[in-house]
Each structure stands twice: as C-alpha cells, then as structure tokens.
C-alpha cells in the first residue's frame, strides 16, 4: 500500500509536468483554433535554453529563466512565421497539422545537429528526500509541483479577471464578434501563443531537471501524453486539461510500477481512448455549451 502512495506521489509530479504542457496546448488551441504539433519543441527548446544558460552562468535559476524566454519567443515565432500565414490564406486543419509537424522535425534535427544527439546533463544539487504523509518527494519534485500550481493558478486569475484574459476567452468563443468589439484579435492570439510557449517551457524545464538529462527528442516524446491530457479534458478547455493531466499522470506512474515502465505511453493512449469512448468530446463538454443559434 505504501508503494501505491509513493507511486501516486510520482504520479502527481508527472501530472504537474503534463498539466503545464497540456494547459498551454489547450489554451492555445482554444483561443487560436489551430492544432499545434510543434508544441513539444517549446519544451525541448526551453530545456536547451536551461542547459546553455546553466553552462554560461553556472546558475540553474538563470538557466531556467533563459529557458522560459526561449520557449515564449519560439511560440511567438511559430505563430507569426508558420501558423498565421497559413490561417490568413484559409488553410485547412490538415495543412496546419503537417506544417507544424514539419516545424517540429526541423527544430529537433537542428538541435541534434548543433548540440549532438547525445543527452545533455543538467547539473543539480544533491537530491534531498522529503517525507510528506504517505508521499516521498525530492526538492526538485516539490519545486516542479509548486511551479505548476503557481503558473496554472496565475493563468486562471488572468483568464477570469483581467481585460486581456476576458478578451482571450472572447476570441476563443467567437473571433469575428471579438473583432467587432474592437479587440485586436491577432494580438490576443499572439499573446496566447507566447503564454502557451511559456507554459510549455516550464514543462520542458521541469522535465529536464526531474530527469537530470535530455536530448533533442525530449518534447516530441512528451507530445502524446500532452495531447492525451488535453483531449481527455476537452481540447480548448485549459482547466479540463488540468484534470486530464492528473488522470494521465497517475495512470502512467501506476502502470509503470505495477506493469512495466515500458508501457507508459501505451497506458496514456489507452486512457485517452477509454475516455473518448465514453465522452467523445472530452470530459468537460459542458464548459462551453452548444453553439449559439
């Protein structure tokens, strides 16, 4: 039984990382209505930002800050240079699927070419284990969970109470009407991409520091669990993704412990398939009701 909880403890850490990534993806999809298969690269680029920053300054914190900035800029550029031009031309979803996947491949291979395909090591202080109730967490684990809680709470407050956040929700609901209200929808969408990039970056930094090392495939390998969580939560509903992340995080860690760690992705996908069998448009279909008229 104690192992059940210990594993649940890992599950919560994994869930926090998935949540950061999936909430970002879901937010970006909800507001811009474009699927982004390059989302994983925000994680990867941020991890390399962390690595380079740490190499240059010797500080993990400065490395992390650089990683966040890199993730935000990368997302801004993907929207500006790839997604918006296609959207303006009225491209279909499949075109965006292919072009963002292309971006992902280019970034991954460029990083491999530049840094080599071997793993980079993140230098970490000696891990300290904390026993909290039935759970055992390292300091890094606690920081990762804290980051997720703070970032996602912050996002909630922005969306709920600020003018920008309300405009983001308005654009998500109806872009044409938002524009007719005087909202610069392109700008709101661009800001949303940056937010998604920053959340993805936090996920990538968390992933790299929890794992201790990473390679150019870091983010792409995490895309499946990210999409699973986002879709289980009802894609486009960032706070649904939070619940999706909890489910996927716990299921994958328990499956890794009780079955085999080789099957994590299989279990993530099975969870997704099961969830979709019962709720084809995600668990939180009621958050946004039927289209008006």
């Amino acid at each position, binding site marked *: 039984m104690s192992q059940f909880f210990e594993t649940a403890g890992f599950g919560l850490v994994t869930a926090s990382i998935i949540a950061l990534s999936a909430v970002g993806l879901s937010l970006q999809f909800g507001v811009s209505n474009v699927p982004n298969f390059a989302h994983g690269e925000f994680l990867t680029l941020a991890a390399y930002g962390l690595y380079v920053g740490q190499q240059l300054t010797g500080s993990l914190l400065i490395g992390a800050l650089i990683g966040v900035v890199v993730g935000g800029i990368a997302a801004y550029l993907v929207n500006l240079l790839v997604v918006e031009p296609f959207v303006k031309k009225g491209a279909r979803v499949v075109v965006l699927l292919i072009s963002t996947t292309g971006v992902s491949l280019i970034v991954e291979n460029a990083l491999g070419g530049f840094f080599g395909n071997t793993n980079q090591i993140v230098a970490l202080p000696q891990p300290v284990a904390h026993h909290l109730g039935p759970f055992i967490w390292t300091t890094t684990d606690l920081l990762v969970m804290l980051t997720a809680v703070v970032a996602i709470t912050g996002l909630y407050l922005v969306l709920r109470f600020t*003018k920008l956040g*309300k*405009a983001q*929700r*308005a654009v*998500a*609901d*109806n872009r*044409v*009407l*938002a*524009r*007719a*209200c*005087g*909202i*610069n*929808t392109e700008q709101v969408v661009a800001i949303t991409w940056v937010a998604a990039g920053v959340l993805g970056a936090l996920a990538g930094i968390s992933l790299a520091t929890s794992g201790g090392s990473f390679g150019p495939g870091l983010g792409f390998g995490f895309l499946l669990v990210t999409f699973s969580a986002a879709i289980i939560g009802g894609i486009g509903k960032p706070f649904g993704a939070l619940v999706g992340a909890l489910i996927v995080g716990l299921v994958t860690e328990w499956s890794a412990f009780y079955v085999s760690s080789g099957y994590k992705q299989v279990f993530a996908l099975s969870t997704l398939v099961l969830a979709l069998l019962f709720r084809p448009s995600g668990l939180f279909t009621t*958050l*946004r*009701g*039927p*289209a*008006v*008229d």
Partner: protein
Amino acid sequence: MANEALLTTEGLTAGYGAVPIVYGVDIIARRCEVTVIVGPNGAGKSTLLRAIVGEIPVLAGRVRLNGAEVQGMPSNRLVRLGMAYVPQVANVFPSLTVRENLEMGGFRRKSGVKEKISEMCDLFPDLKEALKKTAQNLSGGQRNMLALARGLMSDPTVLIVDEPTAGLSPRYEAVVWDHIVRVKETGVAVIAVEQNTRRALQGADWAYVLVLGRRRLEGTGAELLGNEEMVQMYIGKRGTVAAVANATGTQEEADRESEVGSKP
C-alpha cells in the same frame, strides 16, 4: 432638411472570395434615423452588412463613415471610428457571462464601462437579473437584447444590426424595436436588416429593398408599406404568404407566421 449622413456606401460590390454577392449598392444612413434594408432570403442583406463592417473584403466601391473612407478597414478599427455591428447569428459570447459580454462591447472605452453597464441594465431590465449568467443560458429574446446592448456599449454613432428580432416572440419583437427607436433618438444612425418586412417598414425612416444583390427600391417606410405591388413583387414568399393569409387573419399575424416558417 435631411439629417446628416453618417454612413454611406457608393457602388459597393462585395462577396465571398472573388464572386460578388452584392453589386454596386448605394445606401445612406442618417443621424437620428432608422435605415432599414429588406429583401427576400439570400438577397445579400447580411453580406452587404458584413462588407460595410469590414468582415469580408470589398471588391469595388466605397464606404464612408463620418466622412472618412473606410472600405477594407478591419472591423476592430472601425469600432474606434464609431461603428458597432450586431451580427445575425453568433451575436454573443456564449461562455462569457452577461456582464463580461457587455465589458467586451465596451472593450475600446477608455472609461465608464461600469456606468455604461448599469445604463444598459436600465434599458434592458432582463439583463440586470442575468448579469452573472453565461450567455449560453439565456433565452433567445434575452440573447438578442444582450447582443444589442453589447453593440451599444461602445457609444457608437452608427449601429448596424442584422435581424435583431429573428426568432423572437411578438412581445420581444416589439420591445427590441422600441429600443432601436430609442437608440436612434440619442443621435445614432441605425441600420437594420429585418425579416419581418411590415414591422421593419413601420419602424423605418428610410428603407431599401435589396433583391438578388442589387438595390431595387427605396423610400420612406410609409411609402413602401403603401406600395402593395412592391410587397407582392419584392418581398417574395413573405408577401405572397402574407397576402393569402390576409384573407383569414390580420397582416400582423400573417407576417409572424411566415417569419416562423421561414426560420428553421
């Protein structure tokens, strides 16, 4: 002496892609007047409005707003120049609360959003009680009122509404038209597209009849109302249905029946 023209179109041609739906349309909307556009289903009334508000490209011609040429300008910039647009469908933000919908309507306001919201609540008492509800939980009538109020939040000089009473019960229809008339009295030029031709012409200071994307007739509401031939010829199905139904019921009822029948 005629009121000042706040919005004019000259030879406006527009459509989706390169194929025009409306051809060379000239209209004038004046301060303190309701300018109505009527015509059969698919005549291009909504398309004309979408072109005016910058939602679809203008293929030829001009749009003037308060004297400035604005064709091709995106709709978010037109708001700053005093234009407000209430679309025919999808005219509220369903997942936002009523209050948030109104706030979005006042997005460009530098100040006075709160005051304006309470003003809207006085104007539409139904909304006051529903401020915290999400718009998707409103009734059709409340939703149309919210859409109208949302449009008024920016203090527009030109208010453009597409079928503000579609699908409404007669009671709400009367209420909405009441408000439209009140809005024009505050100095606004109102442009309204309306399915219920008779109702629209009653409320119109000036009306245009659009058929197959072209302007066919114009006149004061009363003139066109009195022109039975015009009703027969250009209001199409509605006119015929109304004329037949007129033998058994009142014109008002006939209009409403055809209204319900023509809207799925």
